[in-house]
């Protein structure tokens, strides 16, 4: 499991790579907390290379959703693999998170 960051003008892209389970979910949590602490509220999470996410991983992502919304920020997920998307939908995260098909669509969110 790996987290890579790519800063752009008004948003940051976070690449989640590999499998996220209880032991690795802390990495995402730290990465996202860091961004928020540095004032970055617009976050694009690219899941192109995310193979698996456990409930602990979902919990880590979930905990930021309301916080970002309340601070008028925006968190967008893109390029979810069907299996991962299914997990998001099962838990009902698709109701509260912006999930788009691809990177380009995510970028347009931030440009508007």
């Amino acid at each position, binding site marked *: 499991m790996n987290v890579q960051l790519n800063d752009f003008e008004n948003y940051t892209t976070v690449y989640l790579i590999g499998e996220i389970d*209880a032991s690795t*979910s802390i990495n995402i*949590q730290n990465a996202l907390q860091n961004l928020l602490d540095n004032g970055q509220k617009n976050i694009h999470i690219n899941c192109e290379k995310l193979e698996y996410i456990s*409930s*602990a991983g*979902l*919990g*880590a992502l*979930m*905990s930021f*959703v*309301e916080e970002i919304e309340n601070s008028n920020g925006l968190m967008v997920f893109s390029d979810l693999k069907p299996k991962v998307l299914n997990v998001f939908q*099962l*838990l*009902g*995260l698709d*109701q*509260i998170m912006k999930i788009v098909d691809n990177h380009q669509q995510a970028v347009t969110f931030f440009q508007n």
Partner: protein
Amino acid sequence: MRKFFRKYFFQLLPSFTSWVMMFSIQLYHEVYDLNKGKILFHIPDYVYDFFHFLFLIFIYQAGKTIVKKESKPKSLEVIWLIVGLGGTGIIINALSNWVSHIYMANYSSIFWYNLDKHIGIITNTYFFITLVFVYRQLILFRSTKPKQNAWILLDISIVFGFLLLFDKYLSIPQFIIIAYFLASIGIVMYLSIHTEWVAYLNLKEKFLGIFFMSVILIIQLSYLLLVDVKDVMNYDFDFANNLHLNVIYFFTILYTFFCILVLAFNLPTSSLYELRQLERKAISEINQVILKSKFDPNDVYKILIHYGMLCAKADFGWIQISQNEEIKLIQIKNFNENLAYEVHEVINKYWSYQIDKKNFFIGDTNRLSLLKNKSLEMESFFATKVSTQDKEYGELILGWKHKNAFELELHSFLSIISEQAAIAIENKELFKKSISLERYQEQLKIAKDFQEKVLPKISSIEGFDIHAINQEADEIGGDYLEIYQDDEHINIIIADVAGKGTTAAFYMAELKGMLQILFPLKLELLEFIKKLNFAVSQCLSPNLFITINFLRIHKSTFHCQLVRAGHTPVLHFSFSNQKIGEYQPKGIGLGVLRKSISDKNFEIHEFQLQKNDVILLFTDGIIEARSENKQELGIDILKEWLSSFYSLSSTEINYSILEQMMAFTNENKIDDDYTLLTLKVQ
């Protein structure tokens, strides 16, 4: 001294009485000679010799008991005692000699002369016989059977010697006496070579030993000169008359002489013995630290540095330990801390260069290029690892002000005590770990018992065949099942708290409490789930959530309502059309949205149950079970199994599914909690 005499009064009394008798008879003889004819009664000579014999036997017996009782384990203390006794005897002797010279010309000189002579006899005999038994203690130190037998022979030959007092009356043939002396010499020679006790003395004690033994030799010679030579000068010396003590004289003098020689020759080996002694002391002190209830590894290091420096006569020393991956120097003795760190860096470099993987390192600081220009007082040093076979705890470093100070024989000592220290620390750590593990397991057992109480006992429900399996990955887990019946409905809830183990189990217990409050309120499903979400959000940590399925069955109509909060779908096998419905109505996990939850976040799925229909409620542990090649089971395979097992009873369906699951995972341990509930309409 008074105490001593009081204690042994009855031991000493018979010999002293005999001596008084001897002295009186001798005096009577003298008086009788001077007054021939006036005193008619004559006491024969053999009466005097008889009392002399009794005197010897009694002393011999008393000496044996007293020395045995008084001798302490430390050999030197016994020697100290005998030096005292002998010295006092000599002084008394010299005094009586001086007094008898003063009265020589006087008539009363007969009295003084005889008193002097008998004081000579008593002091001489007491001294030599006590000495025999003191030496017996030394010789029989580390006793062996041949030594003990030889001692018995010496005993016999000494007592036989006493009988020679009567030689003049018995006229024992010369050859027997010669044979007796030769045999005695043999025994004495054999016994005298046993000086093993010397090896157990340290250097200081050996020097003391030589001193004491020399004093004893001088006392012995003085006695012979004072008593026997005095007799010669008085033309009173009769060889046969003194035969009785010759074995004792010969034995004690020879042994004293031997001991002095052996002590002198053993002086150079003392340091090794001292090392062994220090080693024992250090180890026993380390062991005592382990036994303390409050164990501090620093106490062990303190002992290690103390004994390390003491035995190596080191000028400097410290111990390196690594704490949280950081190197720390402790117990720095007589050395600048910053310099110690610098020296240590160099030593650490050496360890990494070392090819032969020794656990010690001897060095001259001036050869170490990095330290060349530093003004170190330290010229040479020694480093050894404080480690057990499994774990390294630190290093012991000793330094000296002069070059080549390290002696190789120190190495074994230092490595032994270093290892002992490491073992002590390791043992204590293992002990602590096992205690806390035990405590932890005890806690888990309590939690498990508790959880078993929390999970409902699935009782039979009229009109339904119902069975559930619940298995936790760890001792306790986060899956939960609840069935609540009221007049109208059967309410079934299956839940999964995110995460595993103790945290999940605690939230599960909280969930049970919330459900027990909500069920009797008979709320509509949406209202129920929103209230539950509110309650859960109050207590759950921000990155956790709970998923549930809430199935409500009308008791008479079998009409069902299902609300899903992020949980896995519900499977429904319809017997009438032989199809499986997978129900996954819209619904968000409890605790995902904590503030702004509304009716819009959920949907209620309604359906009708009929006879022989089967409902499967499960947690993600079932469909996320993985095969050996990491393939997930998935819901489709579960559906297949359901459609082949539907005709069985609920219990059989559950166990068939479980069996298939085990086959799928190749009986790999399923590392998640899983729960499976089958409900069949009868």
